[in-house]
């Protein structure tokens, strides 16, 4: 009988990623609902100190696999290791964050295990027959599919920010199981040569999850600096309306709109943009739109989820400060 809800605890340089905290928090709730144990799986080298963090976040048990081949993430070695511990421990469900690593690792692991995988989920519910049913946005969020299976284990990746992080309980006791694995050399065919963490590099406009855009209301090229500061705090790309491009303040490749780039980020922050139809054509499908405009009648407010009527030169720096507080919290 398979047992337990297992969470893949993703760490980079000994730091547990935020999405793993989210999953442990939600996993705890599911474990209580279903009466299953919650298990955290940590892969790495010299990461024993993470055990108590995972325990405090709600795990009943931690599986710790330490090996020099697991020090840094590589698809092959991680697949190999997880395949072994999962076959041995037979969990009901194996959940991980839908990070770049999760997206890479989960399908390969699921295929090796010969099981199903629900990707990029935004909800999990307990189900009497299938144990867990996963909600997945499909068609770029235009619909949802609810998917589940009786094949064990079920693997799922969960979109970051789906679940809230509960406060840790340092007093929790945890059982630790150390596992050793052998990494198949065939799994090491792709060799990581270099990893460049570009903290200041802004994401590509068309792929960015958050975009901050400026229009004619920016008044001049130098003022885009305040948008860039905001963008860097929340990892956003910076876009522009055609008016800003025509004025020579931004390059054409940053133009959002019908004759510019079509974007559909989770969050689009429009500053000093009136919301002309050609602009909306390029960003109207964004999940959330925030408008900052001093004209309360501006058309952009008709599509905005949230709006602030005010002078952007006053509002944007204040927003940046607020975001800073949130991000560092």
């Amino acid at each position, binding site marked *: 009988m398979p047992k337990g809800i297992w969470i893949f605890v993703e760490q980079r340089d000994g730091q547990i990623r935020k999405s793993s905290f989210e999953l442990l928090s939600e996993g705890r709730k599911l474990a209580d609902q279903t009466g299953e144990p919650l298990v955290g799986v940590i892969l790495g080298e010299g990461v024993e100190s993470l055990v108590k963090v995972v325990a405090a976040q709600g795990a009943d048990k931690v599986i710790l696999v330490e090996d020099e081949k697991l020090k840094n993430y590589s698809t092959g070695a991680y697949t190999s290791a997880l395949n072994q511990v999962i076959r041995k421990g037979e969990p009901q469900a194996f959940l991980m964050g839908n990070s*770049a690593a999760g997206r890479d690792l989960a399908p390969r692991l699921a295929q090796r295990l010969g099981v199903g995988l629900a990707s990029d989920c935004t909800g999990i519910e307990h189900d009497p027959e299938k144990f867990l049913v996963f909600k997945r946005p499909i068609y770029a969020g235009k619909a949802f599919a609810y998917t589940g299976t009786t094949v064990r284990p079920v693997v799922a990746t969960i979109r970051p920010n789906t679940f809230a992080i509960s406060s840790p309980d340092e007093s929790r006791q945890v059982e630790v199981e150390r596992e050793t694995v052998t990494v198949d050399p065939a799994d090491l065919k792709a060799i990581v040569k270099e990893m460049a963490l570009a903290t200041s590099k802004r994401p590509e406009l068309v792929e960015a999850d958050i975009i901050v855009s400026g229009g004619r209301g920016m008044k001049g090229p130098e003022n885009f600096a305040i948008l860039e500061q905001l963008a860097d705090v929340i990892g956003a790309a910076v876009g522009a309306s055609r008016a800003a491009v025509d004025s020579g303040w931004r390059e054409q490749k940053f133009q959002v709109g019908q004759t510019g780039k079509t974007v559909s980020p989770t*969050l689009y922050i429009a500053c000093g943009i009136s919301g002309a139809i050609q602009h909306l054509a390029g960003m109207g499908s964004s999940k959330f739109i925030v408008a900052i405009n001093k004209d309360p009648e501006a058309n952009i407010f008709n599509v905005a989820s949230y709006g602030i009527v005010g002078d952007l030169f006053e509002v944007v720096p204040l927003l940046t400060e607020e975001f800073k507080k949130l991000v560092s919290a």
Partner: protein
Amino acid sequence: MNIVVCVKQTFDTEAKIVFDSQGRIDPNGVNLIVNPYDEFALEEGIRLKEKFGGTVTAVSMGGARAQEALRTALAMGADKALLVSDPALNDADEWVSTQALAQAISKIPYDIILAGRVAIDDGSSQVCVRLAEELHLPSVSTVVKFSVEGNKATAVREIDGGTETLEIELPVVLTAQKGINGNEPRYPSVAGIMKAKKKELKTMTLADLGLAALEPKMKISKYDLPTPRQAGKKVPGEPAAAAQELVKLLHEEAKVL
């Protein structure tokens, strides 16, 4: 060099989602396109051929209409096309899709298999990583840049907050991010469109591939639509208070940060 490109036909980005009487997504009357990421993969496949010689085969799994997607691939410059089509694949999950595609591709010589990073419809980002596993190949996902020299490829992929450079021996599966290698998918010439009409486009069923019907691992129990976008809120108050409230709403209500 032999190149295989996986091409999925998807709903137009503008398409509306409507359910049929059984509550499933209704493709009737919907305009279909080549998955945009797959167009980037095609472009790279054709460029590899132009550089090293060889054959580009476009492979798709889907209904009869998916032939249009393959004709697009042929007009852009692919040499051959293969459609895997079988009514038994109507409820395919990612595992089933992978088995069918892997079986089809295993019959074609390949050095590089290219695919999109994600299909914009079902959007699981699974099929081609699974495919690599099934074919015992290494894979690199979300590739932004790559080059090939001899029997080695160097690929740069996106990771959270940066990039990673990998070196891999061929054969390999690469999934394309938009703008890979800085190229835009080509617009075919009229001559290309005319030639495409004469190129080979083969269709195979599961039986042709020597496969029996496959039981999916995952079952979709229902579909639904998001609640329509709420009428917007203007956050009131002095700038400082409004900014504070806005960030709170984004965090707690919209859950975007």
